[in-house]
């Protein structure tokens, strides 16, 4: 049977503040274990939390960018559960009065725009990290705890169950990530765990109003696993329903290696978090004037930037969409264009050569060895006719490795395009003289033969001859 898929996503993102949410410890990733700690984040007896104002500011920014209402009065609560990566055995989070509520985000899938409503955004502290002695939890006989991540600020962004496919989920996730990056409030590095996602998934017959029984899928730690995990879970539930069975309400974990979801705990085993208002923190009262100020100073967001690229540079919706989906790529584009680069050429190169090289090395544009200025200079050489588009690719290759400027490479390797007609004429004539058979073929109407002759000319000039001139001069001589 064909079911309607109903998905709600909970996205956790680490905020890139310098210090933790309730103490002054550094949030730096990759520090030596248990060095970014103090009595407060270690939860020692007698300590008290103090809210990092930057966290509230970032949360308000995210709330506004996701079209939420910022609650003027919100508070922290304690979420009580025992786990050794949680030194206090409660997580300070927000329960019934989160910082932001009732937002939405428009996504585009298959050229159609769709609105995903956002229930709430709340602030909370991250937990530490368990380091198991064995390869897996079950094969370990001990575990150590690294508390460096304990108290790193998190935002949890909860969507309504408005998502209808794995594809939509992916588009939504990517859009949220792009917005957080544009706001400069999170690094959104899934591989470092700074963006994580849980999905609530249920199925129902088309037309049925009531929601089906949901399963919560945890551990979706990349866009790929989010999509795969959701796809897997949908099929699993379909199979159960088709067999006349019932989906059990439970929490399942995505196993990236096996490509399956597995049960973690049932509804009966679900935690009772026994929330209570955090008595050690005063409620957060956000001044509406401050919210207005933050709103006024929001940076340009992906949708607006995409529109600008279309309006100002005549880029297609598709190209503008790809370039603006990652802030760093869009920044690279803007910097290139500011250096008098031709916008369309920049766009083509970004989506072509640049992206090809980045992908093959598995790096992001932030680590691109060719700077926007260098790329613009390369494009200028093409524009001026100093080198051909084809030679430019060779030059780019060399720039990537040596990090030298295009002009230097062109000079060093003697790659300047030959546009001197007398020089080309001489070569054209010598090639005609050396290949009488091809000339005869051409004259006999075999148009293809000219390709061979052009190839010979290019070979002799190591590709430097201006292709248009070669064509014209060759045809004249024949």
């Amino acid at each position, binding site marked *: 049977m064909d079911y309607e898929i109903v998905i709600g996503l909970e996205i956790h993102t680490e905020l890139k503040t310098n210090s933790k949410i309730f103490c002054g410890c550094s949030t730096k990733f990759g520090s030596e274990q248990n060095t970014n700690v103090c009595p407060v984040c270690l939860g020692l*007896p007698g300590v008290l939390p*103090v809210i990092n104002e930057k966290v509230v500011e970032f949360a308000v920014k995210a709330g506004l960018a996701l079209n939420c209402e910022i609650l003027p009065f919100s508070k922290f609560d304690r979420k*009580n559960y*025992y786990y*050794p990566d949680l030194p*206090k*055995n409660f997580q300070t989070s927000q329960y019934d009065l989160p910082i932001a509520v009732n937002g939405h985000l428009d996504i585009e899938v298959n050229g159609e725009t769709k609105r995903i409503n956002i229930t709430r955004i709340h602030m909370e502290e991250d937990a530490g990290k368990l380091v198991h002695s064995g390869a897996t939890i079950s094969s370990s006989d001990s575990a150590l705890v690294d508390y460096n991540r304990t108290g790193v600020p998190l935002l949890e962004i909860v969507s309504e169950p408005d998502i209808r496919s794995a594809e939509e989920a992916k588009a939504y996730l990517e859009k949220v990530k792009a917005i957080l990056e544009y706001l400069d409030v999170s690094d959104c590095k899934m591989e470092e765990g700074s963006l994580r996602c849980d999905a609530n998934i249920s199925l129902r017959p088309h037309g049925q109003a009531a929601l089906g029984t949901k399963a919560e899928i945890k551990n979706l730690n990349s866009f790929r696993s989010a999509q795969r995990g959701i796809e897997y879970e949908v099929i699993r539930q379909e199979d159960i329903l088709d067999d006349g069975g019932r989906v059990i309400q439970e929490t399942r974990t995505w196993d990236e290696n096996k490509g399956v979801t597995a049960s973690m705990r049932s509804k009966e085993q679900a935690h009772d978090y026994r929330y*209570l208002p955090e008595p050690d*923190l005063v409620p957060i009262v956000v001044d509406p004037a401050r919210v207005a100020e933050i709103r006024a100073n929001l940076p340009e967001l992906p949708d607006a930037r995409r529109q600008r690229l279309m309006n100002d540079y005549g880029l297609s919706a598709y190209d503008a969409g790809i370039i603006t989906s990652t802030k760093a790529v869009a920044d690279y584009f803007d910097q290139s264009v500011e250096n008098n680069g031709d916008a369309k050429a920049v766009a083509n190169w970004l989506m072509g050569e640049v992206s090809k090289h980045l992908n093959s090395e598995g790096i992001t544009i932030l680590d691109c060895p060719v700077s926007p200025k260098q790329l613009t200079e390369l494009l200028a050489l093409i524009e001026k006719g100093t080198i051909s588009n084809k030679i430019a690719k060779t030059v780019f290759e060399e720039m990537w490795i040596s990090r030298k400027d295009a002009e230097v490479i062109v000079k060093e390797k003697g790659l300047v395009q030959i546009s001197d007609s007398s020089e080309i004429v001489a070569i054209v004539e010598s090639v005609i003289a050396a290949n009488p058979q091809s000339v005869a073929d051409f004259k006999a109407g075999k148009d293809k033969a000219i390709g061979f002759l052009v190839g010979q000319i290019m070979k002799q000039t190591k590709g430097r001859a201006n292709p248009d001139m070669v064509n014209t001069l060759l045809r004249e001589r024949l």
Partner: protein
Amino acid sequence: MELFKHTASQLHKKLAAKEISAVELAKAVLGRVDAVDKDVQAYITLTSENALTQAQAVDSKIQRGEKVSVLAGIPGALKDNICTKGIKTTCASKILATFVPPYDATVAEKLAAEDAVIVGKANMDEFAMGGSTENSGFFPTHNPWNLETVPGGSSGGSAAAVAAGEAIWALGSDTGGSIRQPAAYCGVVGLKPTYGRVSRYGLVAYASSLDQIGPITRDVTDSAHVMNIISGYDAKDSTSINTGVPDYTKSLVNNIKGLKIGLPREYFVAGMDAEVERAINKAIEQLVALGAEYKEISMPHTEYALSAYYMIAPAEASSNLARYDGVSFGHRVEGNDIIDMYKKTRSEAFGAEVKRRIMLGTYALSSGYYDAYYLKALKVRTLVKQDFDKAFEQVDVLITPTAPTTAFKLGEKTNDPLAMYLQDVCTIPVNLSGVPAISIPCGFAAGMPIGMQIIGKPLGEETIIRAAYTFEQNNDYHKGFATLGEV
């Protein structure tokens, strides 16, 4: 008179006049501890060497002609739930029996900055849960006025130390009466400041929304001096109040003309000792004779305060005490797995009363019970607070007994938690509403001290200090010294 029988302000004068040295004073107090602590058992940890070093430093300052503060060189005790860097802080619990904090509580820092001398860490009910100090995980403390009776609690060690001359002053903490009730039982002065007046940073939490640190002293004057040092906003405590601290010694004025006193009739509960009631009535008459105006008032929600407290405080405690799990600090009992380790550690190292309150609190917060218990208790708390707001529209201070009876015998109530809880019936509403209150000696019943509680408006410490000082100046109750069985 022996040095250890003086007050801090008296001793300060002697130090400043170089009549005595701080080392001499420290030795006198340490000698007293040596002589009587085997009977009183006020201390969990003694810091004698540190005390002598601190005293030596104060003597050097005085020798150099430097002006020193009132508490400089004056030996005092800290309740053992106040964190002291490098010095064991146990909360009288086996679970923290070897815990040495790597940091100082804000009050400890402030006292150190004033060169106060710390004799040691005082005994208490485990995690401040109790009213007799019998819930200490180590040993009970005895009341210096009669060693067979309790000193009250939970700050029983602090109050007994001050009463016995084992400390000139002390800090306690008060969540439901834990400074005032032991002060009353031990015949000394105990002040619970307005919630937020004194930083809680470094005070091991029992019930965060109720806990407050305050002084236990021989007289009201010393109380004002200690308050001057420990009060004030602390950026490390978000719940501390960000307003200036007055000089509380300016309120040491023997004059209450025109002061409006309210006597809430609901505080004179069934089971109240007739002697206690007589003492309070006599005190009121005296205050009226001294120029105060007096009226009986009603605070109708008082009877629900105790129940609300025993929902709210355990709920917070169940969360606050979750961190004692054997993972990264404190006592650990190894187990087959992490859950087993949690269970064994907590079963073995927490005492019965702590376990009882953790269970109560966990239950009150559980899904399905939250609204009926915890949320309802919060509503009651609001009503109790409104009672105080309304009362203070009519009067400047409220006067009640501090506790319904004088100190009871050790073991008398240990098997009857409810009877024990009832000892806090007059003090708990004060914590629920966050206002300040002081307990001062106001008489004796069968040789045991009676305490009178004076409750003030929020941040009304100056008014209650003035009222208490006036009463004290017109009486001798605070001048008696616990006999410890001595003739």
